[in-house]
């Protein structure tokens, strides 16, 4: 997979570059700020851009803005945002178009999950940090009361962007069992038939959790 890295910490950039190269990816460019990252992405047209959320020039949400820009210029390029901590606002719109991931920086150390997330994002899927999902689930907990503990676990993994077989591997279940759980969850939450496309499924779950989080708070 051809990857461009945009990250202002030289230490982290070099580390990520050697890690990705080591597991067999081709890092075609690594750049320290938003404008040069955009230029590199437009020039190399990579499968995936891995971006730090906070970058020069403004050290604010430069990476997120860059992600939106890449989305309009090159809709088929995957964008994975990395962040030091969970940002309090998550843009559901960015997730909506697929090809998008959002992970905490330390997830990089879990190499197998991390590379799986990279591949999902590059091929049009989603990857959301478990921490983000957990916060959404806590907020929406009253709305989730009809679900069993197992079903909640499955829901969290769905929201992270995992496929049925990914969830099966993580929870050590058979694919069939997971399928049953998923359809029961979607039925209980009234989300309808969204199992065909992994990405739509994530979106449905997110929209659901978001709306109930707001209800729970107000």
């Amino acid at each position, binding site marked *: 997979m051809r990857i461009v890295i945009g990250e202002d*910490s030289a*230490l*982290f950039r*070099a*580390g*990520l570059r*050697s*890690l990705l190269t*080591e*597991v067999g990816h081709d890092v075609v460019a690594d750049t320290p700020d938003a404008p040069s990252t955009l230029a590199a992405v437009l020039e190399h047209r990579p499968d995936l851009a891995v971006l730090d959320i906070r970058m*020069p*020039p*403004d*050290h604010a949400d430069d990476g997120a803005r860059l992600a939106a820009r890449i989305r309009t210029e090159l809709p088929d390029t995957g964008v994975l945002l990395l962040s*030091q*901590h969970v940002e*309090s*606002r998550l843009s559901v719109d960015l997730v909506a178009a697929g090809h998008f991931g959002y992970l905490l*920086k*330390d997830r*990089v*150390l879990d*190499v197998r999950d991390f590379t799986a997330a990279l591949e999902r994002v590059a091929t049009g899927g989603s990857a959301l940090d478990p921490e983000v999902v957990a*916060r959404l689930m*806590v*907020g929406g907990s009253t709305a989730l009361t009809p679900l069993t503990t197992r079903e909640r676990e499955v829901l969290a993994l769905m929201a992270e962007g995992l496929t049925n077989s990914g969830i099966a591997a993580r929870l050590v279940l058979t694919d069939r069992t997971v399928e049953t759980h998923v359809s029961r969850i979607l039925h209980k939450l009234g989300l309808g038939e969204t199992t065909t496309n992994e990405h739509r499924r994530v979106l449905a779950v997110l929209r659901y959790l978001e709306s109930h*989080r707001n209800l*729970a*708070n107000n």
Partner: protein
Amino acid sequence: MPWARRTTFLLWGVSVALLALTVVAVRDLAEPAGTWIVGGTVLASLVPFAAGWLATRHDPANWVGTWLTAAGTNILLQMAHGNWADALAAAPSDLPASAVLLNLTQGVWMGWFVPFAMVLLLFPDGRPADRRARRTVFALLGSVVAFNLLLAVAPGPLMPPLQDWPRPFGEHWVGYGSIPALLVFYGSLVMAALATRRRYRAASDEVARARLRWMFLTCLTVPATILLCWAGYLLTGTPVVALGGLIAMNVAIPAATLVAMLRHELHDGAQQRLVSLGMRLRVAQHQVASGGSVALDPLVDDAVEELALAVRELREIAHGLRPSCLDDGLGPALESLSRSSALPVHVSYSGGDLPDHVSVTAYYVASEGVTNAVKHSGARRVALDVRRTDDGLHVAVHDDGAGGARIAGGTGLAMLHDRVRALGGRLSVTDRQPAGTSLVAVIPCGS
């Protein structure tokens, strides 16, 4: 591009032009020593220039970097002005010069002080700390303009070596108004140093205080240099004694700014450092697993060294670090606090925009209150009410638990009490009827 950074670039252009002017004047003087002086001065200006650039790169929208750069530009300005004046005195017709300009720039020496006073007033976030500091900024810049305008019409000749130049604006008694303008200028310099002291004393935690400590120590160089200047005039007839003060100012303040900014950078670094180390270990593991070999000794040495650095950084920030969730303001931070709580927390927030130290303390009060309610009181509901009133920010945490909480030595509440008191606020814990506890803090918000 932010205006602060654009202005920095503009100042570089101005500096190059000033250097060119100096070279023209020195060549006309035909003095070989001049080359050395010019070289030495340019070297001296590198300190504020470098500090200015590092600060601007660190935070392009922050005017602190711009004013540090202006301090470098000032050194070149003083050199250009001095050499040009000397060359004009030696051979008045050789160089182009304007009597109007020479009359209007008699206060050019103020350039030694203005940039550093501005750095003191704006450090560390690029904004004046309070209303008094904001007024000082206006008084400082206004007095510079007034002094130069009034001196242009003051009775008497220009200062040597320009004493023979004409006075195109005439000589009026109004010109004596330059003396009060000068006093306002001196007053502003003292106020700038005091602003740093106020900021230091109001710093809510050790980290913020450590950031400001060096600045606090160096801020005295600004009024001290003025005093040296006067002492020099009175005792020796020249301001040469002040040179020591000028050098101290030009080295100490840029250095203190950088120390403060780099410390901050280090804090951001601890997490990056640890994750990067993790990645290196993963790469080595992968190489070994796929049949390659890894030089173990250097890898372990590097790893341990990185760990030691990270430990040092973490130790520095262990006390009272500003939680990163406050980046978007207190309101969103409290929302996220309520989301991650094990109990239902009802949040009502109407605090508006708050100074950083107030929102940090308010956040700690809220967080400690909610934690206590969950852990000790057996409460079923918690209400968090934060609103702004005339006497400051009210932070109230109410629960319906067992009650009986007290502010006693060594507890979390006692530390919270100290924290709130340090900002001039008060904290109280009372039992509610029929059941529960109220934790209420009032934190003054300044202007």
